[in-house]
């Protein structure tokens, strides 16, 4: 290996050596080391508190990824932990759902506004896959339209990986372009009356690329088009749900999906996902089998009830936006002072930073690596996540570190 590789993460590296003996690839999925900067970013975490976490090498890191989204209130949030602990003391899994499942379904139906029912799962993929089955059951059609480059989970119809796939897995999955309704209309024309659903995220957040907000009227027009065509509009609000608005991301963008899938911010790190739907799809929903060993675990439901309560009570989305704007303007200013031209995309609470004239990401990777060395986790090619635990102090620390790093980049 090159001299000094991984020098700052000896325990992570040692643990990885053990991991690769017993886990294929050592670490898999979106958290594998190659997704960030190998040898610099930690491979394994130890604990978290508020807006920070500690890796296995004992480094304290300001976390602007929040576990890739779930930690909307920060690590170890007292009220959430207490709610979960109360339920945990009563039991983890029963032969029946707990009453909390009804309470949580009522809460979600009330919160998202457009929906009349809710079901629960554990992860985002559980829900997006179930949602397209509901759409197919309702319409008795096969085809699904998704935006090119969008991520909707790890099941065969949508996984970004190719290993293990066969041609048939994607035969009925078609892509259209974000913010381009004509490209969807063209699909509808080519395959008349064959589409069951269109699956979209509230804004486009492709991996390794800038986020794109919806053009004015795009989502509303999409809703109208889907209705005209008898196609269900499925909102994949897994990543953004309850971060942009306490009632779900369809509200700020002014449209109504038929089904909406939630996960990440739903329970501040407890494993639960949900799909909410309109009355007319209830019958189809009852016909699509849905279960899992732990899907009735009431502990995440308790956490979710508390989390949704806090998100609304404490205007968390507004806080995230404020902090996001502070972060963006602060980093833009220190970058400009250092002679670096940066650009932002996506909503302020889930910002994506890129550097102009850096199409292949070399500079942003160097920026992220040096920032991590100084204790701040800026992901080089994924949108960031802010949490309620990020106050002015944390944001200002991030800006200060960014400024130091930009200056060091310019000084070579």
């Amino acid at each position, binding site marked *: 290996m090159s001299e000094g590789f991984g020098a700052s993460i000896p325990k992570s590296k040692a643990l990885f050596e053990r991991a*690769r003996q017993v886990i294929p*690839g050592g670490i898999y999925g979106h958290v594998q080391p190659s997704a960030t900067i190998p040898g610099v970013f930690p491979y394994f975490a130890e604990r978290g508190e508020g807006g920070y976490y500690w890796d296995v090498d004992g480094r304290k890191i300001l976390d602007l990824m929040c576990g890739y989204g779930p930690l909307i209130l920060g690590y170890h949030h007292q009220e959430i932990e207490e709610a979960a602990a109360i339920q945990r003391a009563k039991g983890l899994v029963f032969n029946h759902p707990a009453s909390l499942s009804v309470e949580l379904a009522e809460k979600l139906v009330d919160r998202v506004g457009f929906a009349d029912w809710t079901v629960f799962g554990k992860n985002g993929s559980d829900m997006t896959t179930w949602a397209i089955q509901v759409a197919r059951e309702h319409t008795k059609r096969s085809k699904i339209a998704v935006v090119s480059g969008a991520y909707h989970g790890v099941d065969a119809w949508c996984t970004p990986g190719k290993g293990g796939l066969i041609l048939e897995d*994607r035969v009925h999955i078609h892509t259209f372009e974000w913010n381009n309704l004509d490209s969807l209309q063209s699909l509808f024309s080519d395959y008349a009356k064959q589409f069951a659903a269109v699956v979209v995220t509230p804004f486009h957040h492709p991996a*390794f690329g800038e986020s794109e907000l919806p053009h004015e009227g795009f989502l509303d027009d999409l809703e109208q088009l889907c209705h005209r065509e008898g196609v269900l509009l499925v909102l994949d609000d897994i990543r953004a749900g309850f971060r942009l608005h306490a009632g779900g991301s369809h509200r700020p963008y002014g449209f109504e999906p038929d089904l909406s899938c939630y996960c990440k911010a739903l329970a501040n790190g407890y494993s639960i996902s949900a799909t909410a739907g309109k009355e007319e799809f209830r019958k189809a929903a009852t016909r699509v089998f849905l279960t899992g060993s732990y899907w009735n675990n009431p502990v995440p439901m308790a956490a979710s009830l508390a989390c949704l309560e806090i998100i609304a009570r404490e205007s968390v989305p507004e806080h995230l936006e404020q902090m996001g704007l502070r972060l963006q303007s602060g980093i833009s200013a220190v970058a400009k002072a250092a002679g670096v031209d940066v650009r932002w995309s996506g909503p302020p609470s889930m910002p994506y930073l890129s550097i102009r004239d850096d199409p292949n990401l070399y500079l942003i990777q160097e920026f992220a690596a040096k920032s991590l060395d100084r204790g701040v986790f800026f992901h080089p090619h994924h949108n960031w996540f802010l949490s309620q635990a990020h106050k002015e102090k944390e944001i200002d620390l991030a800006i200060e570190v960014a400024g130091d790093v930009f200056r060091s980049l310019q000084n070579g």
Partner: protein
Amino acid sequence: MKLLVDDTRHTLDLEATIALQSILPRMLEFAEGSPITRLWVPKIAVGFFAGRTFRAGLDFRRAPYRWIGSAEEWTGSGRVHLHLKDDRDLVDLLQGDAVAIRPGYGIWHVAGLLKFQTFANRFQTFLRMGTLGKKEIKDCLFQARLLLDLTLDAAIHVAAQDPWLKSMGSTGPAGWAHFGLRGLSGEQIDRWIYRSVEGVLKVCRSEPEAGAAVSLIFPTPEAAISLISQATDSSSGTALGQVEVRGFIPLADALNLVFDQIPRYTPPLI
């Protein structure tokens, strides 16, 4: 719907293409790669035939040695024809397996033919990272280079013809990927491979004007060999610093998808 990956004819075609156009040319590089290997080179030209069809030839009669791909260029004295029953036998032979060979024209060059056989065995052994007896040449960087060249070259054919890759859709990121092999004395061997949006690949040995969208540097020859031969998976290799990847990672992923399919068509390289 039937997947073409079950089509054994198609698989054999690709195996033969790689054997003839990716593995055979490496034999020339092996011959020219070091003062010791140069001593092993037979002074003949060997032509490989499937049935009566000329498939490819290696011309060692004089430097620079040549790979010959067409029957029209297959001329001159000092040629030996090796006739295999069919492409299957040809592929097996070039992958190092024992098959029946019917020597044809040039069979009287017995000494040269025996020398070629020894040379080919040494090449196979070298490619598989074995030692070469008393005349062992220990040059990991040379071995890594041969493996990398073989892999990049084979990738071109696999990307173009592998039925599973084609069924998955070839559209993806475009750009140059730079591969750097570092030797223990600080020297570095560089290769570039271009991927088009449609998934067509081409290889280059000098830096392209456009620059590399992604850079993959192997800090030691051993690391390179381990990763290129897929003894170590790319995820682990990256985490352990056996390859340092910077730049547009989706391009590396798209290439890796092609590299992953190569062992379906080549012999195990370690």
